[in-house]
């Protein structure tokens, strides 16, 4: 399991990286944490002729507040997310989910940008970004643009990133104070992708759900926003019938593949249960 040969580039700025990517064309791949790409290269399922390592670009790192948003540099690692007080305070769901990604070693290297940008339906952060209403900043030869996370994912490993573009940061609106949240992930063991996972952000008013957003991981070729399921719980106190309705609405949009984690029917079924449990836990921790 040895990667094929490639040329290594380590640009110091986004502009240089973008230029390299556009000059070198389809034979070039950006390299972030490498924990998806390098194993693919070792299996020779990916054989880029050029690797553009983004670790040399200082501006891609860090977490900063910008008005009501947290802006996270694409090369910020899961470990750094976990260490951030600001994230634990403002959006604890991000902390919770980051801790469920892979294992400690991978989290030291794995980046938020890599996790959201490569379009792997098994990754956890994309559904989180949909649920939180994040936008991605993409920089390319024609300048920069902002794309809503909800518009970014087109299919498995297929996104709206244009040739030559790099995802440089994610911008996440800080959820309302007192919101409740939960990320329920069923996996076989540490290091596994989700059999199914659900993210919930909600606010409660007088014991009833006031606002709600639900995201789903690894139950479709793209991450999903379960809008109908979320709509079904608004105005309710999450009684059993409502939870059942929400789970059913979420299951209706799931289309997982059968794999070693289980058959389609099972993965959809537990997807519904993850939604139910995430709703209940989010409601319980809302203030």
């Amino acid at each position, binding site marked *: *399991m*040895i990667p*094929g*040969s490639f040329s290594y580039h380590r640009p110091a700025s986004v502009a240089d990286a973008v230029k390299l990517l556009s000059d070198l064309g389809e034979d070039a791949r950006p390299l972030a944490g490498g924990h998806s790409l390098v194993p693919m290269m070792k299996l*020779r399922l990916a054989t880029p002729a050029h690797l553009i390592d983004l670790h040399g670009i200082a501006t891609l790192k860090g977490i900063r507040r910008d008005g009501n948003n947290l802006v996270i540099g694409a090369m910020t690692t899961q470990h750094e997310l976990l260490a951030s007080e600001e994230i634990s305070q403002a959006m604890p769901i991000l902390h919770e989910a980051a801790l469920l990604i892979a*294992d400690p070693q991978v989290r030291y290297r794995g980046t938020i940008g890599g996790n959201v940008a490569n379009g792997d339906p098994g990754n956890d952060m994309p559904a989180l970004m949909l649920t939180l209403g994040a936008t991605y900043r993409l920089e390319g030869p024609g300048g920069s643009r902002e794309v809503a996370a909800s518009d970014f994912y087109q299919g498995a490993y297929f996104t709206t990133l244009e040739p030559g573009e790099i995802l440089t940061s994610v911008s996440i609106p800080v959820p309302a104070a007192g919101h409740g949240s939960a990320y329920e992930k*069923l996996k*076989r*063991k*540490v*290091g*596994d*992708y989700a*059999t199914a996972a659900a993210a919930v952000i909600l606010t409660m008013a007088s014991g009833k759900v006031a606002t709600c957003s639900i995201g789903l991981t690894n139950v479709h070729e793209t991450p999903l926003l379960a809008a109908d399921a979320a709509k079904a719980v608004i105005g309710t106190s999450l009684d059993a019938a409502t939870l059942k309705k929400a789970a059913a609405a979420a299951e209706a949009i799931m289309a997982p593949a059968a*794999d*070693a*984690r*289980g*058959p389609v029917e*099972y993965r959809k*079924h*537990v997807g519904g*249960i993850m939604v139910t449990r995430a709703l209940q836990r989010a409601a319980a921790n809302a203030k």
Partner: protein
Amino acid sequence: MNDLTPTREQREAALEGMGCKRKRVEDIRFTQGKGNYVDDIKLPGMLHGDFVRSPHPHARVKKIDDSEALKVPGVLAVITAETLKTVNLAWMPTLAGDVQMVLADGKVLFQNQEVAFVVATDRYAADDGINKVMVEYEPLAPLVDPFKSMDSDAPVLREDLAGKTTGAHGPRKHHNHIFEWSVGDRELTDAAFKKAEVTIKEMISYHRTHPSPLETCQCVCAFDKIKGELTIYGTFQAPHVIRTVVSLIAKLPEQKIHVISPDIGGGFGNKVGAYPGYICAAVASIVTGKPVKWVEDRIENLTATSFARDYHMTTEIAATKDGKVTGLRVHVLADHGAFDACADPSKWPAGFFNIVTGSYDFPTAHLAVDGVYTNKAPGGVAYRCSFRVTEAAYCIERAMDILAQKLNMDPAELRLKNFIKPEQFPYHSALGWEYDSGDYHTAMRKMMETTSYAALRKEQADKRAAFKRGETREIMGLGVSFFTEIVGAGPSKNCDILGIAMFDSCEIRMHPTGAGIARMGTKSQGQGHETTWAQIIATEIGIPADNIMVEEGNTDTAPYGLGTYGSRSTPVAGAAIAMAARKIKAKAQMIAAYKLEVHEDDLEFDIDGFRVKGLPERYMSMKDICWAAYNSVPPGMEPGLEAVSYYDPPNMTYPFGAYLCVMDIDVDTGVYKVRRFYALDDCGTRINPMIIEGQVHGGLTEAFAIAMGQEIRYDETGNVVTGSFMDFFMPTAVETPHWETDFTVTPSPHHPIGAKGVGESPNVGGVPAFSNAVNDAFSFLGSRHIQMPHDFWRNWKAAKELGAVA
């Protein structure tokens, strides 16, 4: 005596002999990264070999084009079956009496089969080379389901066996049939079933899995053209056997083959057999005149070198209404994959599966095993168990639970009622074994008391009632398992490998200063032999364990032995060590008698030396005797203090144990939680309790993995779907339960120190405990038997089929 004279306790403690939790000698180097494993070996000019493997499970190989590969910088040679035919090595014999392709000869028979071997200057160039070898295949229909292997229209897998109606183990009844093995009294057993008041019948499968030690299989072969000598460094659990096999198949004089097993990163049965990688690396070294390294990657390990299990066991028990067993009838369909590369003693095509009567007094039994070929990887190794013993233990322990359920009896009570009684030992089983010793009732009752078994049953009854009332979605299972192992292969009367009796050996050389070196025919892969073997010698001859260096794995220096697997090291080599030490001690006694000027019968051994009976102040330490052995032995005696023992055990040993698993399962997701696991092991005399407990922890963890999800699974087209650590369940510290261990001691009466072996017991006893817990949890919903592995989705599926989930 003054205050400085050590007490007896201090003298004993100074030896760090048997029974002491001696800290391991090996750890000094391992904790500092100074182990020496095969891939750490770097010889001058060393080349690397890597395999081109088949993507197809069954195909004809039409053409192999190596022209582009040979243009890759660093690639020196591409070896194919055609190359190997020139040295008559395209096929190799297996330990089970079959033959196996070294490289694809006209056909491939399983996915990832070895097709060509690329030799290059380094592993990077070799990998580049394998990606440039172009192989043209003509895919053939794959045979995946063993139950269809003997259908009349089943594809012919082994064209090389065309017309052969007899195999190594008797008649073949179909072109995909390997052997039928039948043991026991069929008529008597059939009669017992005819008059039985109660019978049960169930097809119990033990799925295909893989030992997967953390270090894969690897070797470095170095052929010296001038001397005509071949040195092989390899991950071999049985280095002497490898030397003999290489000599026989490569036609090299055995004295010119040097096999060295350095430190080994776990074996679990994976490293017993001979694999194409070894043959190809050796041939490549002979062809190029340079050392050649072959290192398997993890995917290759999981998909090509030996799998374990894949036994499908149709099991019947006859019993009386009040729960006394009267007969056992088992038929096994054994899926061996493309070649029968089972690593069993030669005369035992299904290993010691006839231990399947377990711990119970069956008056009669009959067993038949049919081995078949399929388009899967070859093998059938003993993954942390004596040969096919874990399959047998799983079979009988599930069946006893099924019988208990039918009789509406508690499974622990049913076992107590049918155990072989202490006074029945030595016990002759209906399928031909002589159990050496046991006290099953004591072990079982200790388990039940320590775990408050009755209270757990009460809690379970309450939880079941609550579940039926809809108050909880969690069900609780108690998995009882009581196993009897058969280890220590084995007596020459019934155990050999390729005609070599399965004795083992020890050579001890004491040095003048009271230190020594001991060498054995075994080979540790983590069992801590360097530590424990010295403890046996320390107790036997009174020299501190720290003064004894233990060396294994070099066939030039170690006495011939059959290696380490099947929990045979302590029962066989452990005995050889004690016997060699006793020879040392006997000579030491003669020297002491001469020096103390008494008759040797007037001496008694006292911890660390000899003392004149009745005159305690006349004493000579073993340390001083060692010195005397080199300068003042009695007239006529040869100087020196050395001994060799080759030990042919009179019988196997039969460790046993009582395990309990307490498990909770969420029916909505199938997620389980092992709340408690208690393991009581009786391995006879305990040499190092710390190491025993460590072995039990490790074996239980492997049992947990196997029972709860660890599977080599093929889809219906013959593709392996669990070929990496993502999908092949390898639990981390987070999933692994906490283990409680306990013990009783029933020494083996025929073993010099009474020890029985323990390394594999926890796997053998653990798997049924986990599976019985799952089955017990679901039983009140009406299920009788749920097949392993019990991963989340299968638990959910069971719940759904039983109507517990909408």
